[in-house]
């Protein structure tokens, strides 16, 4: 995926043109349903209307049934597309990738890997100096680090804020 992005970037033109097509982002957020938080970093490359994205995030989970408190949760990596509308004030993001379990759960060991899916239908982008503040009031993420006999699936409804350069 990374080589494909580099190849597309080289095909896109000279260095100035190239730099303007990249963006980077860091964000933080949480979910009350399936209580959790997430800290993520993202890079993107404009390829005409859609932007190709690569994302990595840490997604610790809160325990309600036990006194384990904040559990390490999962580490997610994914690739996808971002579409921007209304003079790039609004964006929609779709990502798919891999979710890796970071703790020993009732039925699964750390390191178990499965599916990561994220849909952000509406991300508001506000210009702040040379940055953009990004705010996603409600998005959905499916984390399924184990899809075996007893699947481990977390459906999170997230609120996220981030800075984009």
């Amino acid at each position, binding site marked *: 995926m990374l080589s494909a992005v580099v190849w597309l970037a080289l095909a896109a033109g000279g260095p100035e043109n190239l730099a303007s097509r990249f963006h980077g982002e860091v964000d933080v957020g949480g979910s009350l349903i399936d209580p959790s938080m997430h800290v993520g970093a993202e890079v993107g490359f404009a390829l005409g209307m859609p932007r190709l994205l690569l994302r990595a995030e840490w997604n610790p989970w809160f325990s309600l049934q036990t006194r384990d408190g904040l559990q390490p949760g999962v580490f997610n990596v994914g690739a996808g597309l971002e579409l921007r509308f209304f003079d790039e004030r609004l964006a929609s993001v779709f990502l798919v990738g891999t979710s890796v379990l970071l703790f020993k759960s009732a039925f699964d060991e750390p390191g178990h890997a499965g599916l990561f899916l994220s849909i952000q239908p509406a991300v508001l982008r506000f210009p702040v100096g040379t940055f953009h503040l990004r705010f996603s009031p409600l998005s959905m993420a499916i984390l399924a680090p184990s899809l075996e006999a007893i699947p481990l699936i*977390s459906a999170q409804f997230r609120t996220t804020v981030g800075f984009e350069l």
Partner: protein
Amino acid sequence: MRALAWVLLLSQPAHAFSIGSAFADPCHERITVEALRDTSFDFSDTDAQRPLKSEAELRLAGWFLERLGEAAIAPPPVDERVLNSFLVGVRRPDVEGWALRDLASIRSLQLDLDGQSAHFLRAQRDEGTEGNASAIAESRAYMLALIDSSRLSWVVGADLLNVPTWVEHYADVNVPVIEAAYLLAQALHALQDSFSHTYRTEDVRRINVVMTYLGAFNPDWVERTHGPQHSVVLDRCELPENAAAVAAATQASHELMVAVEQYWRSGNRTEVDAVLDRWLSLTPDCNVDNGYCASPTPRIIENEKARGCSASAGAFVLLGALLLISRRRRFH
């Protein structure tokens, strides 16, 4: 967020000795595992009729044990399937198969007008001093019905029962349990609650009065008629003041387990009845006027409430001092 925290705190799933959650110690689970020590539950006579234990069952039993608390509890001398059956069973009356965040379902379970005997509490009809005897009789009948069913299941060597159970982070987990142990565990839940839902004598052996949970939701509640209200203080097995009740609940649970195991094999229920007689007998003529025959239980509740109030008052004083300091700094 603060409102959510209050909702979660006020809606703890357990309204008895607590079951394990982010907000409460796993009291029923600890008492049951401790009581299983020195027992000899052996289902090998009928194990051949059942499928072999799965890897998931072994993992779940280990996960349950790891979460019994900071105090290390040695694994009881029963296999993983038996342990799962007891732990899923003893949690069942408080949560059924619901997630702990399913507050509406859990609240409806707590307020079930016909379900109070599962938690050794008064039903609406259990009024006055006579209400103590009727509440005890109803809970005892509930326990004996479960114990009789458990014997029937043991005798026929019933198939494993798949019980929908909420296991954190997993949806739709059906835990295969041995029905006889699972039913006995639900009876144990009621027996254990008889130590957190009653005022008892100094030696914790006899019951002086049975408490009410429904009373807290009844605007016409009168202590003399409906009994003292349920107190979360008595649910907390980690409080030193409740140590005697917890020890007695563990002893009573162990005695009932041993007696039921004998009953399964012999068909003679005499020892089961004797255990229930020993721990569920009522001291006559205890009422609000004589301080429930000078039971020490109300003092435990009042002392703990006072401690909670003084801690809160201390926090307010500290907050006030911090505010004052911050105002002074701003003005200078």
